């Protein structure tokens, strides 16, 4: 592949701006170049927080001496074959990174193509290009960047501590490593032991192994697989259970066609999918890969190439929300595991479906057992261990087991085959009622009350037209609006469920949210808030004594309900303690 100068017309359309902000951007650009060059293994070395040195070595295609000389010029690239900025299939496309780095640091590139006799080297210091000279290197490329911003002390001041810069640079490598499980990565930084991520096979299996390597066991064990396709868009990845949340969105790894991004549409979709599972201010952990035809997404939006623009954002968003919700519904019957053993055995067994329940070989310990019944005579006021008329024979091997007692008139203690489960009865029942109401809303649609006098709501013209574009979707949620001149909308019908509501306030909230997140969340949230408060009233309170049959019925209903692992407020509805954990507590293991 030859490097060439991009035509003027294309150059002018490239999103201009700062390419190099900090060591992490250098690392990102260099690793992207290595990936674009078809490398199978990439080594990244950082010293002095990446400010002192970044070295990226790859075994990719390398460059000829002539290409090398041109590669450090502005707008020189071997990519973008048809000058078509709208179908970019490589990570780079602007021919900006190397000259930008060369302008602010001491850049050295040694490279050799597989069939060349020897390697060539070039040096660029503070924008000054030195002559090519021969060098020694196997096939591939080694790029060294030293003393970042050495000539511009002002820009150095904006850097954080070496430690923080190093962490950010490592994070950049981790993101790219997640994107390309088929490439081996080695990461060497001063303040930690070298890490190697072995190359994995293509496909889902390889991706999961890489995610486990990069993200650690926590996400892997408390996440569900996400899968979905619609038209030509495909989504896959992992979604963390709501009980495993963070206070910021940094742990949301999002990729579009193998490119790590921080994209508003995607972030908004994640937020929407978790909306009624997480408190405001908590962010889920996700690693999601979107793949689609490069022509359906514009990557030339931001100088750091971390933002994209979808041609059909609604499609991508809808697909992502659906896929996430489905996955969470699947996995939601469990909360985060609490014991030392991270994998929830519930989820594992659940995979087999109801038919897969194993029959318990152990003798059944029912309420009728004497040692239990003896509690009665102690007259412990708030532990109800009454004997049920007849105990369903096989509940021990159900995921939430057999109810044994109610303590403090609030918690149900259940015994499972290999542990015990503690259920918060109010939280659990509230979730059940809420899910039922929500399903009803979805099934029946939202009844609409027409307004005697349609309300005119003044908005920013862009917001108004964005809302009107979504009029169909909104009417499905009970809100009927129409365009009303350039800067206003007319509200004709409101969701009857909301009663007498402040239509103007609702519409303004929606417009704001739509501009930022491209979602109708405020409306959905209000509807669900009503559903939620109704579910709170209709729920079994803490403090109510439950008969054993009632407790068992609640456990069985939880097993059959989506999202039963958390209450509406994102708190767990139950926790599970494995026998192994209990044994550890007593030093038996």
């Amino acid at each position, binding site marked *: 592949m030859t490097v060439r100068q991009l035509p003027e017309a294309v150059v002018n359309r490239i999103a201009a701006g700062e390419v190099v902000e900090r060591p992490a951007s250098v690392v990102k650009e260099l690793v992207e170049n290595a990936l674009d060059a078809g490398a199978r293994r990439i080594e990244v070395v950082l010293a002095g927080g990446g400010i002192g040195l970044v070295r990226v070595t790859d075994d990719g295609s390398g460059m000829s001496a002539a290409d090398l000389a041109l590669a450090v010029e502005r707008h020189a690239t071997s990519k973008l074959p048809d000058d078509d900025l709208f179908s970019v299939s490589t990570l780079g496309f602007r021919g900006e990174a190397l000259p930008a780095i060369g302008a602010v640091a001491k850049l050295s590139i040694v490279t050799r193509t597989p069939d060349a006799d020897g390697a060539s080297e070039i040096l660029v210091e503070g924008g000054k290009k030195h002559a090519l000279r021969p060098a020694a290197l196997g096939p591939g490329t080694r790029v060294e960047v030293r003393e970042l911003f050495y000539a511009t002390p002002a820009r150095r001041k904006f850097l954080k501590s070496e430690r923080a810069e190093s962490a950010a640079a490592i994070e950049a490598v981790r993101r790219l490593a997640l994107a390309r499980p088929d490439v081996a990565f080695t990461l060497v930084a001063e303040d930690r032991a070298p890490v190697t991520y072995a190359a994995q096979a293509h496909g889902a299996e390889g991706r999961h192994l890489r995610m486990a390597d990069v993200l650690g066991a926590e996400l892997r064990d408390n996440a569900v697989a996400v899968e979905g396709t619609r038209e030509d868009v495909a989504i896959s990845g992992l979604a963390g259970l709501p009980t495993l949340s963070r206070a910021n969105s940094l742990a949301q790894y999002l990729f579009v066609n193998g490119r790590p991004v921080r994209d508003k549409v995607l972030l908004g979709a994640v937020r929407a999918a978790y909306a009624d599972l997480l408190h405001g201010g908590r962010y889920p952990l996700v690693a999601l890969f979107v793949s689609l035809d490069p022509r359906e997404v514009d990557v030339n939006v931001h100088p750091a190439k971390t933002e994209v623009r979808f041609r059909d954002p609604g499609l991508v968003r809808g697909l992502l929300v659906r896929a996430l919700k489905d996955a969470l519904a699947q996995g939601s019957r469990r909360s985060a595991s609490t014991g030392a053993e991270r994998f929830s055995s519930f989820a594992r067994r659940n995979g087999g479906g109801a038919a897969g329940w194993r029959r318990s070989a152990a003798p059944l310990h029912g309420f009728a057992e004497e040692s239990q019944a003896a509690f009665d005579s102690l007259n412990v006021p708030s532990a109800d261990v009454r004997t049920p008329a007849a105990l369903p024979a096989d509940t021990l091997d159900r995921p939430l087991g057999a109810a044994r007692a109610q303590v403090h008139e609030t918690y149900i203690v259940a015994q499972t085959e290999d542990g015990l489960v503690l259920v918060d009865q109010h939280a659990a029942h509230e979730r059940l009622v809420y899910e039922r*109401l929500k399903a009803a809303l979805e099934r*029946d649609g939202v*009844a609409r009350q*027409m307004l*005697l006098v349609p*309300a005119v709501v003044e908005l920013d013209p862009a917001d108004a037209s964005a809302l009107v574009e979504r009029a169909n979707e909104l009417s499905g949620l009970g809100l009927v609006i129409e365009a009303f001149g350039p800067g206003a909308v007319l509200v004709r019908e409101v969701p*009857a*469920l909301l009663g*007498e509501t*402040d239509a103007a306030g609702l519409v303004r909230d929606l417009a704001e949210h739509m501009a930022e997140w491209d979602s109708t969340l405020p409306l959905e949230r209000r509807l669900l808030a009503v559903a939620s408060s109704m579910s709170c009233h209709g729920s079994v309170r803490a403090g109510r004594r439950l008969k054993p049959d009632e407790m068992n019925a609640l456990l069985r209903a939880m097993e059959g309900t989506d999202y039963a692992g958390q209450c509406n407020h994102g708190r767990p509805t139950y926790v599970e303690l494995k026998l192994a954990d209990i044994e550890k507590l007593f030093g038996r293991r």
Partner: protein
Amino acid sequence: MKVTLERSELVKALAHVHRVVERRNTIPILANVLIRAGKAGLELKATDLDLEIVESVPAEVKSQGATTVPAHMLYDIVLKLAEGAQVQLETAGDRATLLVRAGRSRFTLQTLPEGDFPDLAAGELPHRFTLAAKDLKRLLDKTQFAISTEETRYYLNGIYLHAIDDKGAKLRAVATDGHRLAQVEIPAPKGAAGMPGVIVPRKTVNEVQRLLEDAGEEVAAEVSPTKIRFTLGKTVLTSKLIDGTFPDYARVIPLGNDKTLVVDKGEFAAAVDRVSTVSSERGRAVKLSLSDGKLTLSVTNPDSGSATEELEVDYGAEALDIGFNSRYLLDIAAQIEGEKAELKLADPGSPTLLRDKETAGAIYVLMPMRV
């Protein structure tokens, strides 16, 4: 201050004034009732800064003076005193406490100085008229249900009282919450014709309604652009008005609706109530299916089932299906006095007009729901 009076007189007056006092107050003196003994007898006054009620009570005044004591507590005390008892109220020498005595019971209540008691400076109330208590009651009772509770449109949080000239001078009350509207009118009493249109707040409406329960035949009203006062016998209620513009309601009243339905009000309300039992959540619609001489009411709740009921009605126009919020229908039906209710309909997406078949002067407008 030292006075003696009948327990029953004091109970009645306190019952009227104490309700104005909010249970929770950030300004301590607003929890108190002002007691003033003058030549003419005893006067009680309570306020929440927007609304004040003053009532005079016959009493034997031994020495004049004034003080303030916690209103709810004084009321509770007096309620529990024996019937027929004589109550003596006396301020202690330093005026810091009020001594309440009846029979062998003695109570000492902490007071706050009467000088700090706020006054709702009413100013000049230039428009005065008198109306029959039952007329005022009708204006308020029949519109009150439609007052909006939604606070962003504060100008709908009351009854719009105004004079109009529509085949003779009328005094008209209108309330709406944006989903429905109620309009009731009476022939304008003398002196009302020139009054400004005013919005009477919900709390004031409620208090006037309560006072009307034991009022005499007539009520005197006085109005300025910012205040309104009603005098009912010995009770004087003065209130601030909502400072806002009531919307031009006339344009939402559909006068051209041509499909007329006449129903027996009792049967209709009972049927709506029955079928809506199956709708568990608020805001579920009851569907009215109209065909020649027949009305079918139905509610479907996928969660619990469905209900239908047929009524024989007076309807000759073309068949029509239309949905309404069942609670709204019941609210309006409850206002209709006669046996027959008349509904004027246009189509499932337009406002419906409802009224009493026999008596004029009250109309209701209801916006349908999509079903």
